[in-house]
């Protein structure tokens, strides 16, 4: 797990309720102890990083602890911001009449289904491309698996789409006029560049990795297997597995004992099926994780000795 801190972008994903947010937060904390400047980003519409750190986190990075910043992305807000930005951009370029019509059209397009997801995607893309140079490592606490995997496929899809558009535009201009000065083609080419860079960084094993969090139960195991398959398909590196909330072995309580016997079977299955990937086991803690104190304990289990030993 330690070498994960060498990456630039880490995603934490998994089935709902397995502890993605706690694992992402603990890893971010460990990295900040190791001297990295870390940004912890929540992309789940139901944000819970602010609950863990027990303070408000908004759509702009806020410093939570030394070397650790938090950010909660909100799709609706991002889409509003995106639209405002475009309107500002085109303001000086067109006459009053065209602007009025264009603004109407922009508002309409921004209210289409999917616009929020797209704005979310655009913001994540900016972060992954390293737009904000303040940070060494960005840790994403993602929404449950399916939604996130779709998001990771988007650069590919969008790239193909924009490429087709600019080809079509180019073919048209080839007949009519010079294509170097066409503002539409210039805008499309810029988009294409951005998407290419986003995808290159997402797919580079040196830059990005996806961590899968699961608990030793039937459904999370199956979902993890599917997620690994899809990540491989997409070409995203699987960084490793975090097996969360393992029950203590020795307990006089017959209920816990029976849970434990079942768990051992699943743990074996996890070791067998995911032998290729590095795995780390995290025991069920005596109390649930919120606040920096309990998070410290968890980060020590996830990434031991992250604190650099002083000479």
């Amino acid at each position, binding site marked *: 797990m330690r070498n994960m801190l060498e990456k630039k972008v880490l995603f934490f994903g998994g089935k709902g309720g397995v502890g993605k947010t706690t694992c992402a937060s603990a890893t971010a904390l460990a990295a900040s102890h190791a001297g990295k400047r870390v940004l912890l980003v929540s992309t789940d519409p139901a944000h819970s990083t602010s609950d863990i750190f027990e303070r408000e986190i908004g759509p702009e990075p806020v410093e939570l602890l030394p070397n650790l910043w938090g950010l909660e992305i909100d799709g609706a807000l991002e889409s509003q911001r995106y639209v405002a930005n475009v309107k500002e951009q*085109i303001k000086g370029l067109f006459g009053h009449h*065209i602007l009025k*019509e264009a603004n109407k*059209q922009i508002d309409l397009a921004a209210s289409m289904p999917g616009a929020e997801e*797209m704005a979310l995607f655009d913001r994540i893309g900016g972060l992954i491309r390293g737009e904000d140079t303040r940070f060494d490592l960005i840790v994403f606490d993602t929404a449950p698996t399916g939604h996130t995997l779709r998001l990771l496929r*988007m650069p590919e*899809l969008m790239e193909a789409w924009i490429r087709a558009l600019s080809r079509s535009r180019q073919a048209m201009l080839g*007949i009519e006029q010079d294509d170097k000065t066409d503002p*539409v083609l210039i805008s499309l080419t810029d988009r294409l560049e951005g998407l290419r860079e986003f995808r290159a960084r997402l797919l580079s094993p040196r830059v990005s990795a996806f961590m899968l969090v699961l608990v030793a139960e039937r459904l999370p195991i199956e979902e993890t297997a599917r997620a690994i398959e899809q990540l491989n398909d997409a070409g995203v590196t699987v960084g490793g597995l975090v097996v969360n909330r393992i029950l203590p072995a020795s307990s006089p309580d017959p209920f816990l004992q029976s849970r434990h016997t079942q768990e051992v079977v699943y743990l074996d299955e996890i070791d067998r099926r995911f032998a290729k990937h590095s795995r780390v086991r995290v025991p069920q803690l005596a109390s649930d994780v919120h606040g920096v104190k309990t998070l410290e304990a968890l980060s020590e289990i996830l990434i031991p000795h992250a604190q650099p030993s002083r000479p």
Partner: protein
Amino acid sequence: MIGVVSIRSNIRDFFHGAAYGAYERELRMQAAELNDLFLLLCYMEIVGLPNPATLYLLDVYPYLLEQFHTWHKRMGMERSPLGTLPCC
């Protein structure tokens, strides 16, 4: 009196038209078709097809408004046929 220069330019235009006219017409039609395709790709949502790139096209919409106007004129429609895209 018609000048020699103008006669010469008329003759040149005549031969130019005779030699290239058909090609130019063809090219103009092809350009118009490509233009239509591009407009369709950009405005897919208006005709009910999902377009994954909508947000990335917002800043080119004002440039396309003019083209859209040319399009509906060319299609023989005096006013914009789409209520959602009122260009004139």
